[in-house]
C-alpha cells in the first residue's frame, strides 16, 4: 500500500475526494453506470430486501470528532491531526439526553481518536451513569502513548467499565506500520500490555478488550475465527498479550481507501471482489438495521460510512436536537455501492462479521 504516502487528510489537501458528492459520483459511475456490475439497490431487490429498513435499534454510535493523532492510509473518516471537527459540550449534552432515554443496549464512541475531544472524559463519566449495558470506546491504542495526559486512559476506562475496541491490522510490525504509520506497531503493543496490566482482555475478565482487523490493501478479510486464532497465538507468543475477540472488518471504498484504490488502479477489481462476494444473508443483519450514527455536529445517519458520505437519515428527524426513536426507526435506509462492503462474504460491521 505504498502508492500514497498520506501525511495530510484529503480535506487538508483540498483533494476532490474530500467531497462526499465526488465520492458518490465515482461509486455510481463507471462499471455501475454502464451495467457491468449491478447497483446495490438492484442486487438487494433480487432477494426482496429493498428498501432496506431498520429493525430494533440496538446501537447508538457517536462520532465525537474527526481529529486523530494518526493518518492511516485506509481511513474512511479521512481523520488526522489537521481535522478540526470536534463535538461541542452542547451537542454532547443533547447526546446525553438521548442516551438516558434510548432503547439501545450499546453506546459506541468513535472518531478520529475520541480521546482527543477535550470533553471526552466528562462525557464518558456522564454517559456511564446512564446504565447502558455495553459502553464501547474505539481507541486507536497509540493515543494512550501519544502524550503524558493520556497515559492513565487504561485506568480511566477501567473505572467506567468501558469496553475497549482497538484497531490492530496485523501481528507483525511491517504490515501494521505500513497501514497506520511508522512506529504505530510498537506503541500499540505497549498500549495493549498496559491495558492487560489493569485487567483488560484477560480470559475471565469483565473488562472487554477486542481488536479490529482490516486488510492492508485491496483485498477482503479472511475468516474471522481463523484470524482471531492467529492473532492470539502471535500476540501471546511474541508479546504476552491477551485480548477477547477479533473483529474482521472490510475496508469500504470511501474517503482515503477509495483514494488508494483509484491511485493504485485497484478500484474496479476491488468492486468486482465485493460484488462477487455479495451474501444476501449478511444483508439481513447489516449494521445500519440496528444502529444510528451521530456526527460531531449532531446530524443523524444510518451508519458511520453514510456519515462520511454526508447521507443524512431519510427521516423527518435528522438532528440530535429533534431526536425521536420511534420516528427514526420508521425510515428507509440510504444505500449506495459502498454498501457492498458490509455484505461481502460473512458480512462486515463495527462489531465484525454479521452472517
Amino acid at each position, binding site marked *: 500500500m505504498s502508492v500514497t504516502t498520506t501525511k495530510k487528510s484529503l480535506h487538508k489537501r483540498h483533494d476532490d475526494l474530500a467531497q462526499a458528492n465526488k465520492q458518490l459520483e465515482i461509486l455510481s459511475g463507471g462499471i455501475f453506470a454502464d451495467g457491468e456490475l449491478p447497483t446495490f439497490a438492484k442486487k438487494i431487490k433480487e432477494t426482496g430486501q429493498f428498501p432496506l429498513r431498520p429493525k430494533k435499534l440496538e446501537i447508538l454510535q457517536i462520532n465525537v470528532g474527526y481529529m486523530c493523532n494518526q493518518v492511516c492510509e485506509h481511513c474512511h473518516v479521512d481523520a488526522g491531526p489537521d481535522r478540526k471537527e470536534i463535538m461541542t459540550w452542547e451537542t454532547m449534552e443533547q447526546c446525553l439526553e438521548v442516551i438516558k432515554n434510548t432503547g439501545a443496549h450499546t453506546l459506541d464512541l468513535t472518531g478520529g481518536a475520541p480521546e482527543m475531544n477535550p470533553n471526552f472524559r466528562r462525557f464518558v463519566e456522564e454517559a456511564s451513569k446512564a446504565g447502558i449495558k455495553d459502553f464501547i470506546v474505539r481507541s486507536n491504542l497509540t493515543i494512550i502513548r501519544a502524550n503524558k495526559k493520556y497515559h492513565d486512559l487504561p485506568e480511566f476506562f477501567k473505572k467506567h467499565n468501558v469496553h475497549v475496541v482497538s484497531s490492530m491490522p496485523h501481528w507483525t510490525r*511491517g*504490515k501494521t506500520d505500513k497501514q497506520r504509520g511508522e512506529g504505530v506497531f510498537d506503541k500499540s503493543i505497549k498500549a495493549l500490555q498496559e491495558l492487560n496490566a489493569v485487567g483488560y482482555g484477560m480470559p475471565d475478565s469483565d473488562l472487554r478488550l477486542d481488536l479490529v482487523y482490516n*486488510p492492508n490493501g485491496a*483485498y477482503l478479510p479472511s*475468516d474471522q475465527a*481463523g484470524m482471531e486464532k492467529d492473532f492470539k497465538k502471535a500476540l501471546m507468543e511474541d508479546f504476552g498479550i491477551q485480548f477477547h475477540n477479533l473483529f474482521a472488518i472490510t475496508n469500504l471504498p470511501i474517503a482515503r481507501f477509495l483514494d488508494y484504490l483509484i491511485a493504485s488502479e485497484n478500484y474496479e477489481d476491488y468492486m*468486482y471482489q465485493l460484488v462477487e462476494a455479495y451474501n444476501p444473508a449478511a444483508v439481513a443483519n447489516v449494521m445500519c438495521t440496528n444502529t444510528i450514527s451521530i456526527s460531531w455536529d449532531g446530524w443523524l445517519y444510518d451508519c458511520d460510512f453514510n456519515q462520511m458520505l454526508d447521507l443524512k437519515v431519510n427521516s423527518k428527524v435528522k438532528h440530535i436536537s429533534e431526536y425521536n426513536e420511534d420516528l427514526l426507526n420508521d425510515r428507509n435506509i440510504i444505500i449506495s455501492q459502498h454498501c457492498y462492503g458490509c455484505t461481502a462474504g460473512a458480512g462486515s460491521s463495527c462489531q465484525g462479521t454479521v452472517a
Partner: protein
Amino acid sequence: MASNNYYDPADLRKFGKITEWSEELGTKFFDYYGKVFEEGALTAREKALIALAVAHTEQCPYCIDAYTKDTLQRGVTKEQMMEAIHVGAAIKSGATLVHGTMMMNKVNKLEM
C-alpha cells in the same frame, strides 16, 4: 478474442463460465476444487501457500494472481509467501538436477 494478449487479467473472473460449455464436468471440477481447499488435515492457509508455490512452478498467471490475493487475505506475510515460492523453485531445480544422475549413468555405461 476481445484482447490482443493471450493472457488477460479480466479472464480470471470468467473462470466459472467454463461450466457453460460442459456443465456436468465443470460443476464436478468446481465442487472438487472447493472441497480441496476446505479446512482439513491441513489448514486453509497451508493449502493456500501450497497453491501459491505450485502456481509459480506451473507459471500460471491467473493462479499467481488468485493465490497472492488469497494468501494476503489469510494474513500470510511477504516473507512466508517468498519462502513458499523458494520451496517450489528448489523442487523445480532439484527435479532438473536429479536427472543429472541419468546422464551420469548413461555416460558411465557408454564410456570405457
